[in-house]
């Protein structure tokens, strides 16, 4: 399948009181048609800013996309006029946010929020849009849709609001959905429902997804390919199976090791990643992870490693010691 979205050398900066922060630093990744790709990392790693940059939702003047290209179906989104970009947002690329309550309009009825996009983007008549809105609620598993359409977001539970967000995202039959921590605010049993729903819908409707999350379990259940981000860069990428079975970056390995797992015997002690993520206004010259890394060598402080192939299926890692890491893992 061909690439639907290709992000090349994307760089996004923010002006802060502490200086200029390069939140996304020359990052490249892609999403193919019908595929689910994950951007994984901890707070401040640039995963959300990456998605907002694709949607051109970076708030000026503090934030600015300073370089790179975002090719969607062959067109560079960064070169489009605001008007052209508006026609893509919500229609061809939709977005789902973590906290549905803050992204839904509290004073508009559920019906209005679902029909607005249809009427604006597709020129659907009011009656037809209403019919489609009811259909969308049914698609995302909200029963009793006629009554629900007359309600307002505060009358919905957290799980239903997230279903509603998914319905809004699906309204114009987009080919790509960017989902930013879609289940983080939800309880585990509701998270399971929403994940099953998203998985079923992406399969049935063939819509591609970019899922942004810090939850390695969610990624494992869900993504075909995974990009791991740290301090504004991608440090490892691979198919989900390859990356979890053979992590080739010490940060990925550290993340996988630091979480307790229900499928493994309980360990006497957890293996945390020591230290703190770096201050983005004062990034070191070399590898940003070096100070926390158990595998660091002298070179890591001086030279920044680029992504190089480390395995099949496009598995790449940005680590000078990727091979030693693999040998160390094989010996365990």
């Amino acid at each position, binding site marked *: 399948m061909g690439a639907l979205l290709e992000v090349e050398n994307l760089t996004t900066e923010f002006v802060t009181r502490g200086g200029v922060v390069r939140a996304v630093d020359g990052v490249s990744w892609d999403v193919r048609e019908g595929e689910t790709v994950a951007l994984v990392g*901890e*707070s401040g790693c640039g995963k959300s800013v990456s998605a907002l940059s694709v949607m051109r939702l970076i708030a000026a003047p503090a934030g600015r996309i300073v370089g790179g290209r975002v090719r969607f179906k062959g067109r560079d989104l960064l070169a489009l006029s605001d008007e052209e970009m508006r026609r893509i947002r919500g229609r061809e690329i939709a977005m789902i946010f973590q906290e549905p309550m803050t992204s839904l309009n509290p004073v508009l009825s559920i019906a209005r929020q679902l029909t607005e996009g249809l009427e604006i983007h597709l020129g659907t008549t009011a009656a037809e849009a209403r019919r489609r809105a009811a259909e969308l609620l049914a698609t995302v598993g909200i029963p009793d849709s006629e009554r629900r359409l007359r309600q307002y977001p505060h009358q919905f*539970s*957290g*799980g*239903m609001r997230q279903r509603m967000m998914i319905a809004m995202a699906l309204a114009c039959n987009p080919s790509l959905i960017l989902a930013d921590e879609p289940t983080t605010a939800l*309880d*585990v*049993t*509701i*998270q*399971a*429902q929403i*994940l*099953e729903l998203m998985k079923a819908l992406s399969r049935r409707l063939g819509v591609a997804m970019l899922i942004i999350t*810090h*939850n*390695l*379990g*969610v*990624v*494992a*259940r*869900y*993504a075909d390919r995974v990009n791991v981000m740290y301090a504004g860069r991608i440090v490892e990428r691979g198919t*989900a*199976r390859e990356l*979890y*079975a053979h992590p080739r970056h010490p940060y990925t390995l*550290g*993340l*996988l090791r*630091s*979480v*307790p*797992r*229900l*499928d493994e015997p*309980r*360990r006497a*002690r*957890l*293996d*945390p*990643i*020591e230290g*703190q*993520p770096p201050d983005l206004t004062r990034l070191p010259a070399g590898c940003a992870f070096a100070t926390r890394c158990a595998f660091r060598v002298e070179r890591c402080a001086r030279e920044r490693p680029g992504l190089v192939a480390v395995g099949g299926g496009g598995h790449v890692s940005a680590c000078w010691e990727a091979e030693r890491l693999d040998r160390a893992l094989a010996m365990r």
Partner: protein
Amino acid sequence: MIDGRPLLEVRNLVKHFYVSGGLFGGREGVVRAVDDVSFAIHRGETLGLVGESGCGKTTTGRCILQLERPTRGQILFEDRDLATLGPEELRAVRRRMQVIFQDPYSSLNPRMTVGQIITEPLAVHRIVPDPVKREARVQELLGHVGLLPQHARRYPHQLSGGQRQRVGIARALAMEPALIVCDEPVSALDVSIQAQIINLLEDLQREFGLTYLFVAHDLSVVRHISDRVAVMYLGRIVELADRKALYDDPLHPYTRALLSAVPIPDPELEARREHIVLGGEVPSPLHPPSGCVFHPRCPIAIDRCRAVVPELREIKPGHWAACILA
């Protein structure tokens, strides 16, 4: 490790909230936040209290800490019924029960330095009346939680989330407590930092003989840290057992569904695993279902579950479940 009388005993705890509603603010209903909950925690033990939002786990913790007045039931701490204590005695007891909150940012005063935050309880409760010794004690406490002496001069906003949680822990430790209620202490932290804080809590427990009530929704974290685990649903404990028994052999269908819902960071395993996806959502505690409160979502419910309120029964030695089919 476990000897004699429990440090804390909760007996038939009930906490109702009255909700006024409607245009005229009349009494609309009763939220049964905690509905007949009993458990004990022994010295040096960690009891995990898990459940989804609104299940009553936080309210249970708050009742124990006397931040909420129980509607009914008894809380015995070091064999004394807290409801019978006078204000002075209660003050002394409360010192021995501390709390660590989920969001260290909103529980630390932004206008106080870390040093002042930790010093305050030492002065107020006259734990260390001498100011010079107090300063030394603050330095010692910072060391216990893995912070550096210079952190004492910083303000909360100058610290990372993990460091702020360490300050919250130091403040609790300052009181020399016997029991610490940890209310979602790591859920606001990044995964790489969560493990640091969990290890720290375990080290402190060993060093100071602390007893923890660990309230959380993350079942993997609770399994790691707890000796015994209680699962709550809609104000009630539905299962209570040793860690190993609860995770290896869950008896309540809700516990089984919860465990199955946790995604495991292994794509191959996830592809093979069968998931019990519960339908519906947690009902409102304003109008709890009849009989077993879990029956509308239960995959194995039978007719009788609609009528009979299941008692928490000891099904195997030390393994309790509130299900008539268990």
